[in-house]
């Protein structure tokens, strides 16, 4: 049994932990709000871009197949993976879920060389400890990873792909659904999957292309990669804040419960001490009377 003083100290420390988790929850909530509107806004753009490219790919008779549309996984058995994780922990299973997915993917593709590019500290930490070879790590904060950086990264990836450094490019990210729900997912960025563009109704429209389908695709594809990559980062960031918010709400609640319990034990201990003292006084007095 703890002494009343020890219990009191414990209550005090949990109260301050509760304050911290509540503050972290508040911070996550405000950041979530900001980034959530951004992710929803840019989803419209990404969707339209996807639509346009799918119309372009499915309806045009491209004269020369663009290298980014040609499957060449067999010739170049190197897979590049961009993994987006958080920089900090305390966000539930957010980091773990996506890391697990990458590990599983790597095991399934053990016959190929996997090259990892990390955005976010946690993924880098895990995979460098696990002994994976890491090709690149962006030490900047995920939230500071802006569009211009995505642009640089995308053009770098594009060049590498065209030079034949790797045969496939995947992005592992966490897709934001609602605050309570987000899904660890991955998409294949390069080569651009033609399957992804199969529309439900087959389009038989004859498009006019200006200047030409090939030229448009030449300009649209890099943009598409950029947009997708940026979207993935935004989705992950939103999921991270949502996960952190949920985790911190749970932590605050738990702290509250613990305080209640400890207060109960404290009161009991105090009562016991009083009873004990009273008994001593009473029995002392009785002894004197006799």
């Amino acid at each position, binding site marked *: 049994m703890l002494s009343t003083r020890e219990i009191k100290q414990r209550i005090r420390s949990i109260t301050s932990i509760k304050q911290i988790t509540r503050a972290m929850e508040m911070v996550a909530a405000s950041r979530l709000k900001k980034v959530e509107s951004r992710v929803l806004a840019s989803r419209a*753009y990404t969707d339209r871009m996807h639509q346009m490219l799918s119309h372009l790919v499915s309806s045009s008779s491209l004269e020369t197949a663009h290298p980014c549309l040609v499957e060449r996984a067999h010739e170049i058995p190197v897979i590049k993976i961009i993994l987006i994780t958080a920089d900090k922990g305390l966000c539930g299973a957010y980091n773990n879920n996506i890391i697990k997915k990458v590990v599983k993917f790597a095991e399934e593709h053990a016959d190929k060389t996997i090259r990892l590019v990390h955005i976010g500290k946690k993924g880098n930490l895990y995979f460098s400890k696990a002994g994976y070879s890491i090709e690149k790590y962006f030490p900047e904060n995920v939230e500071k990873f802006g569009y211009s950086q995505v642009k640089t990264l995308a053009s770098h990836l594009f060049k590498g792909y065209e030079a034949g450094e790797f045969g496939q490019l995947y992005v592992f990210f966490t897709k934001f659904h609602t605050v309570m729900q987000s899904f660890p997912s991955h998409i294949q960025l390069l080569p651009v999957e033609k399957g992804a563009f199969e529309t439900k109704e087959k389009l038989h429209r004859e*498009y006019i292309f*200006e*200047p030409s389908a090939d030229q448009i695709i030449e*300009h649209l594809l890099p943009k598409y990669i950029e947009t997708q990559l*940026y979207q993935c980062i935004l989705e992950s960031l939103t999921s991270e804040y949502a996960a952190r918010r949920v985790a911190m709400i749970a932590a605050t609640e738990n702290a509250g419960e613990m305080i209640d319990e400890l207060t109960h034990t404290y009161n009991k201990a105090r009562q016991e001490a009083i009873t004990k003292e009273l008994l001593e006084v009473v029995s002392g007095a009785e002894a004197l009377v006799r």
Partner: protein
Amino acid sequence: MAKTFNFEIVTPVRVVYNGVVQGISADGTEGAFGVLADHAPLITELKTGIIMAEDPSGKTMHFAIEGGFLEVVANNVVVLTDTCIKEGEVNIEKARAEKDAAEKALTKVGSAQEKEKAQAALKLANTWLKLANVH
């Protein structure tokens, strides 16, 4: 009343316009063109410039866009662009400052890439200023 169609301008940051219009005209890389209702399916690249759209009441709207792509399909026109500013949203001071900075960068010796970038910035700033003077 003239036939109308749906028109959308979307940037990565926001949907700038989504509504019904009578007609639009834009600067393509191959020259200026117009779109009216029932236009044939078209996908084209756009230059940095001003897009004009006429709403059903006959009022003309102006948008300054920074390059992009335009698709016409089944009476839906979608413009995808990096940035877009509506008329009345132009920050003239900022546009002038950008213009000066770009002009300065052009006089300096730099790589072809830097020159290209400055040229694009100058063009965008000029487009903004043009948009500010539409009325």
